[in-house]
């Protein structure tokens, strides 16, 4: 007797989609090991030259800078998102809760391009920040914010914020308010109660949020492309340039594969390093 009669029926679309994904990944993987023939869309014979080229300082630097930007973004997002998530979970006012939740989550529905455009308006030389700084006389010529790592990180924080807020809020909602009350009644001030009780107990959410933000930022394309304008190279923008300006698909494929492997490696490393922290919050 079949215990799950619809299993095959329901799984088959997913299996087809998975098969297509695997095929695409396999295609990219085989492209990565093929030679680039300038002027031709067709790759040449098998070679390891693409991966050898990655070791050139120019490309190695892009990888390092990408990892640095991802780390900065993940940590900055954590710092911005934590108080927001805390307020959303702990606020007793429904109105404030809803307002914060909508503010935190709206960017998610706007799409990366629209969000990034809004940051061009804010960060540009005649943008919001510089007009104010010039008007109140703090500076006498615009501060360069566009096309800088700082600008890219600020915009990326905005992109990753909603996911981080959701993950932290989920973790914090599992931290019983009674723990904080207990700490307080035992003589811990608000700061001590937060650092010794709330923060460690929300650690699973922090670990999940930071690793997700890292992976998201690594694959972000529109934001570094538009805010960085080519002057803040990241792996994703480099892949685009190589693939669609130079039509060097094999090298672009090698970069993609390496980027994917690096992300997986960094996440695995982070997971291992943060495991003791995560166990703190295990209930």
């Amino acid at each position, binding site marked *: 007797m079949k215990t799950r009669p619809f299993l095959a029926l329901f799984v088959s679309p997913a299996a087809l989609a998975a098969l297509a994904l695997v095929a695409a990944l396999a295609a990219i993987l085989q492209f990565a090991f093929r030679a680039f023939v300038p002027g031709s869309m067709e790759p040449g014979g098998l070679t390891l030259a693409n991966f050898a080229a990655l070791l050139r300082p120019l490309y190695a630097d892009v990888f390092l800078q990408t990892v640095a930007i991802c780390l900065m973004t993940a940590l900055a997002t954590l710092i911005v998102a934590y108080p927001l998530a805390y307020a959303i979970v702990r606020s007793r006012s429904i109105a404030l809760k809803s307002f914060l939740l909508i503010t935190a989550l709206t960017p998610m529905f706007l799409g990366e391009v629209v969000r990034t455009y809004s940051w061009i308006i804010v960060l540009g030389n005649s943008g919001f920040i510089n007009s104010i700084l010039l008007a109140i006389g703090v500076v006498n010529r615009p501060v360069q914010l566009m096309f800088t790592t700082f600008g890219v990180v600020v915009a990326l924080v905005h992109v990753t914020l909603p996911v981080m807020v959701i993950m932290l809020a989920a973790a914090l909602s599992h931290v019983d308010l009674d*723990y904080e009350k207990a*700490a*307080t009644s*035992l*003589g811990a001030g608000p700061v001590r109660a937060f650092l010794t009780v709330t923060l460690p107990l929300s650690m699973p959410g922090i670990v999940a949020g930071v690793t997700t933000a890292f992976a998201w930022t690594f694959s972000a394309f529109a934001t570094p492309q538009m805010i960085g304008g080519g002057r803040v190279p990241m792996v994703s923008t480099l892949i685009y340039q190589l693939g669609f300006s130079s039509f060097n698909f094999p090298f672009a494929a090698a970069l993609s594969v390496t980027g994917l492997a690096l992300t997986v490696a960094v996440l695995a490393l982070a997971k291992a390093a943060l495991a003791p922290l995560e166990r703190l919050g295990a209930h």
Partner: protein
Amino acid sequence: MPAERIPPGSDAPAAAAARRIGVQIDGVTKRFGAFTALHEAWLKIEQGTFMTLLGPSGCGKTTLLNLLAGFLEADGGEIFVDGQLMTETPPYAREIGVVFQNYALFPHMNVARNVGYGLAARGVPKREIAQRVDEMLALVKLADFGHRKPKELSGGQQQRVALARALVIRPKLLLLDEPFSALDKNLRGSMQVEIKEIQRRLGVTTIFVTHDQSEALSMSDRIAVMSAGRIRQVGTPDEIYRRPTDRFVAAFVGDVNVLPARLERRQGDQASVLVGGVRAQVPAETIEGLAPGAAVDLFVRPDALAIGEAGGGVPGTIAAHVYQGSHVDMVVDCPAAAGGRLLVRVPGTEAPGLWPVGRVVGIGPTAGGVAFPPEAA
């Protein structure tokens, strides 16, 4: 608020002067929006007393506990602990130990760190923390459990840890928020005895919140019965049980039967009422202002009723026997009684043989009860 006001429910001044006041609650009010959770509560608790706040859910007892701990701010009135004004003191400076309903043991710390948390927060040196934690764990009989995580402990053990954690800071006041509700029935009894014993040994003023009247009667030095945001009566368990001053208290604490009766006459602080031709003695204070012949409701405990032949007392029909070992609870259909039923507690085990189910009988009071004016319809 007028200073000369005599606070309802507070102790007589003479008794209060005998021992120092541990907790004084002066006209404390708490509102949540339009809902008044606590309406001008007045209460004085002597140092070292085990005081129980007893009432059904929503009566304001937990609100009062949270106000004492400082987790809520009062909308009016003052709270004093050991003579010190607490109203403006933040919870972390109140020196009040709290045992939570779910214990709220920090899951990421072992038992020793849980118990030592309050001492670490006070900057007590490590060596002294270790020593005091050991002493306290020995007191709650968990001497070898310091290295365990809370989730590796049974419910009763978790409760002991919660108690040790609250007591190790040598609090001026210990608050127990329904601490037995998560324990199974057998464990509950032994934990009650144990907590009472530790409380008496340390002499710490304790406020215990519960909705369970048998818990309240068995553990308390004094009980404050609450309902609908008000303190209805404060007294010893025996006073609350034997001489309720309020219909609500009479009905909430212990099993009770309500029978219609008539006031016969009043004599000093006693009065007599007639119920189905049988006389019963009641305190006069609860029916002040009523003239002889006035209708009253007689509240009488199941063990203060007796079953007799039909024709005497209030007529009824035996509906069921409930064997309880040392006594038998007889359920009697009685149209005259509130709810249409009476519960009569007969000592020994002969009653079912004498009064089989279906037998028409007469029920009358054997001992006193308490009478109240009939409820306004």
